[in-house]
């Protein structure tokens, strides 16, 4: 299992004659480890319409799928998107289509009749709903319609638009009666001056008022109209029930057949989707994609079993052009997945670089433990982590991978707790093995500064290794991320130490010369890169611009050395803060109960919980910051593409 480098991938190009298209596609779809590339833009066909039948089949399948969906939906047959792997591909959709047509016609007829009746029921119900509130009024409709000075609109509208409707009517005198039917619909009766008829119609329309359409021939009082509508509705409901029975019979007869066709169409559509990724050569098809190198032989065997005319070209990473980057396949044991997640939050590792997950597995708990050193609180975190990773707490199951991160941080915290002599904030239970943060602050800060320098050196070495992986030899020697940068960093540290320590073994002059040499190397890095790789112009933008740019880049490097190094002082500072906070809890507990009664222990427990929750979170954020901004930024490029192979049963 590759822990530092992604799994080796090879790029496979398959060139095959048209007659093998289904065999090749089935293999690609079923093996589950091929990640195709969309190369459909490659088209060297003499006549682009020559593969028209393939696209025609693809689009016929889309149509068939739509027809099947519509038919099944109308018959209330559940549709499943699962694709069993043992299905036959549909090469001629017309055959299925002809058989479907018969069922479809029957369903369509039934559905049209049902829809028609439903529509009429809906209309009747709508009319009844609108009229119900007025059922007790012996009111002639013609009276409402033909008023001389009054104009009225009776209708139904969205409840949440009523306020806007009122606001829009504020220019005229009006009366708006509302009767809420549901939280979504309200029936309204708008009354206004007849000379504002056009305004009222326009405004009601824009407020989405659906005006009640009572036929002109509807005569009589409102109760009479309601009664006749109710009778018609009853008859319509009886007709609908008959149609429902016919539907159930049709459903029972055809359900299993339709489900089978749907699965087949779904499967075939997926295969045609894959075909749409293929490139077209003059007389053949071209497929390109990625497979893990270890699967290469198995894959090629499967392809060569089809026919000797199926030609494969395999390119390993060394043979790829510069712009082609393989996808990144990384697999970790469950204990490391949380750490890998911390890396991918920053970015997915690039194929041509070291994956920092394993380093983070050590450095993250180390930095956390140094800032949060306490035997007891660390043990609590470790137990909480184990509980989280056991997946027993259902609500936190999504964070299970982070359980191991928490456990590792807890264990590191326990180790540093022993080194600092602290358990649940008590500093007198046992003597520190190494140092007491509150009593030797300067020594602690200087130690963390030195540890930071070591971590930054490790990051610089990783940057050099990455440049070696990329075969960027000029960058490896001359650039700020290469040997020149690393030497400059240590020469600067040496120079500062020689100023502070009179007995420093290396003379200042040697260090100054080393600094100047490194600076010159770094300033000439881009020029040398252009020179060795035959890139022109040698000085981009002219020599003066090149020099100014190089100078400022150098200045930035100096600043980053300083800021990155000083950042690690926070590790010591947080260790001191942690001890200080624990002391505050102790003082508070003493104040509450000087005789160490129940109050004392309540404050100790609550204080420790507060420290674990609050300070634990702050320390986590600081650790993440140190990892991302001080450590990763030195060597980690990211931007990789995840390896996500094709699988036919994917939904």
């Amino acid at each position, binding site marked *: 299992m590759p822990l530092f480098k992604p799994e080796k991938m090879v790029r496979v190009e398959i060139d095959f004659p048209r007659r093998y298209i289904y065999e090749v596609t089935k293999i690609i779809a079923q093996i589950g480890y091929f990640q195709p*590339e*969309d*190369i459909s*833009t*490659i088209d060297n066909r003499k006549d682009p319409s020559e593969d028209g039948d393939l696209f025609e089949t693809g*689009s016929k399948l*889309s*149509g068939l*799928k*739509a*027809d099947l*969906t*519509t038919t099944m*939906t109308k018959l209330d047959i559940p549709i499943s998107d699962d694709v069993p792997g043992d299905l036959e591909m549909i090469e001629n959709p017309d055959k299925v289509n002809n058989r479907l047509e018969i069922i479809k016609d029957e369903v369509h007829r039934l559905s049209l009749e049902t829809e028609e009746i439903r529509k009429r029921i809906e209309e009747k119900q709508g009319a009844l709903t609108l009229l119900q509130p007025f059922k007790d009024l012996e009111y002639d409709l013609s009276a409402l319609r033909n008023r001389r000075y009054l104009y009225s609109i009776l209708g139904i*509208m*969205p409840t*949440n*638009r009523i306020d*806007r*409707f009122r*606001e*829009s*009517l504020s*220019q005229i005198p009006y009366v708006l009666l509302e009767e809420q039917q549901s939280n*979504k619909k309200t029936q309204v009766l708008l009354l206004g001056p007849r000379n504002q008829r056009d*305004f009222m119609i*326009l*405004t009601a*329309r*824009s*407020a*989405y008022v*659906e005006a009640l359409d009572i036929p002109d021939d509807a005569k009589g009082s409102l109760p009479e109209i309601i009664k006749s509508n109710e009778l018609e509705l009853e008859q319509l409901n009886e007709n609908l029930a008959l149609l429902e029975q016919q539907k159930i019979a049709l459903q029972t007869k055809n359900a299993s057949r339709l489900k089978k066709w749907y699965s087949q169409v779904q499967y075939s559509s997926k295969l045609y989707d894959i075909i749409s990724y293929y490139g077209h050569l003059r007389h053949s098809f071209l497929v*390109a994609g990625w497979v893990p190198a270890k699967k290469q032989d198995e894959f090629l065997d499967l392809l060569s079993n089809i026919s000797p005319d199926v030609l494969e070209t395999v390119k390993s990473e060394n043979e790829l052009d510069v*712009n082609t*980057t393989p996808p990144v396949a990384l697999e970790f044991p469950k204990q490391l997945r949380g750490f890998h997640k911390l890396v991918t*939050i*920053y*970015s997915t590792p690039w194929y041509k670089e070291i994956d920092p997950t394993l380093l983070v597995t050590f450095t993250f708990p180390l930095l956390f433990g140094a800032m949060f050193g306490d035997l007891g609180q660390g043990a609590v975190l470790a137990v909480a982590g184990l509980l989280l990773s056991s997946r027993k707490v259902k609500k936190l199951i*999504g964070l299970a991978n982070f359980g191991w991160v928490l456990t590792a941080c807890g264990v590191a915290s326990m180790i540093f707790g022993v080194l600092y002599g602290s358990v649940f904030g008590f500093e007198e239970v046992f003597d520190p093995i190494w140092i007491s943060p509150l009593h030797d602050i300067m020594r602690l800060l200087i130690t963390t500064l030195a540890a930071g320098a070591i971590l930054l050196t490790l990051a610089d070495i990783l940057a050099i290794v990455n440049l070696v992986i990329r075969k960027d030899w000029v960058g490896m020697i001359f650039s700020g991320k290469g040997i020149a940068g690393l030497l400059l960093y240590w020469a600067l540290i040496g120079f500062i130490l020689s100023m502070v320590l009179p007995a420093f073994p290396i003379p200042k002059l040697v260090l100054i010369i080393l600094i100047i040499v490194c600076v010159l190397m770094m300033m000439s890095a881009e020029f040398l890169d252009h020179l060795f790789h035959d890139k022109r112009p040698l000085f981009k933008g002219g020599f003066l611009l090149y020099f100014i740019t190089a100078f400022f880049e150098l200045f930035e490097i100096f600043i980053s050395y300083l800021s990155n190094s000083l950042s690690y002082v926070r590790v010591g500072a947080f260790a001191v803060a942690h001890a200080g906070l624990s002391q505050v809890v102790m003082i508070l507990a003493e104040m509450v109960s000087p005789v160490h009664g129940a109050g004392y222990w309540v404050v100790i427990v609550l204080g420790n919980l507060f420290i674990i*929750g*609050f300070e634990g*979170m702050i320390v*986590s*954020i600081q650790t*993440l910051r140190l990892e*991302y901004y001080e450590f990763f930024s030195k060597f980690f490029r990211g*931007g*990789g*593409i995840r390896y996500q192979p094709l699988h036919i049963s994917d939904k």
Partner: protein
Amino acid sequence: MAGASSYGVANVKVRVSKAQLLTSATYAKLISCHDTRSIVLQLQESIYSKYLVGIDPQTVTPRKLIWKIRQRVPEKFEIIRDNLPQRSQYFIDLIFSWYELINLKTVLRGINFSGDWNTIKHLLVPMGKFKTLPFELMVASGSIDNAILMIKDSKYYTTLMTARHRFLLEETLFPIEVLLDLEYWQKVWDEIENLPDIDQKAVRPIITRIIERNDLIWAARYRFFYHLTESEIINYTLGIGTKVNDSIIRQVAQGKRLAEVIGEIYPNLTGKVSSAQGEGQQLSLWEIELTREIARVCSSTFSAQPFSLAPALAYILILEYEIQDLVLLIEAKASGVTSENYQPYLINQGYN
């Protein structure tokens, strides 16, 4: 404390994602590109490179390129959404469903103009792993009426059915699109109330600015392009903003110049758009200016409200504006529009 613990991980994700937004330097390089090919090469140097795998810079069409880069939106959204506390996920899902609404409108337009699925599908915003409406089947259904019936169980059904009678009478999608927009933003506004207090305070200024921009631009557009009356415009706007209330909407509907109205309510924007240009062009430029204002409000939340829902919302909006800029750049380069003609329409000019 509660906010910090709930939003700790999301905050880290947003901060990392924000650091990956295109820089001013990349913007400058993109602007200096001569054609689609050079834009592709430049984007291959950026964080967008992962979406451009297999793209041939010589032959790629602007439409395909736009579709490819838009895949960043659902990917980033998923990362951020999954790390938000559950109580905020519904709201952020609602914000993301704006893309579903855009797609729904595109599909309805496609059906109305008898477009086929192969043409329409590339105009849709990719939704990634998020379940969305059965657009392909809707197109296959062949009519607006059938397409509406196909999404009977969706949250859009009632709205579509309400506007349907007007569509059938007027034979234009205008009433459907307007009502979809109104209902969506009203819902967003109402849902703020269901968020915890800290999130309400953090999120409301951003949503308010968006609704105010929409109301102003809608009102001006309905008056200028559609010649609608004041009462119609009132019904086609929300009027729930703090600064853009009904009185302001009425002023715009009555024909008061947008520059004057905006100058009064947002004094910092006075004179941002030259009045020498035609009214239609001024309207577009004001829309951009108001969108920049939203982006500014978004940016301020990263430091002002770090442990709330606001940074996640702000990032999603800022990413969308970045994509809108890229779309503009790609289309401008493909059709040979000079930089002085399209630059005023860029929302951002990069970060950092």
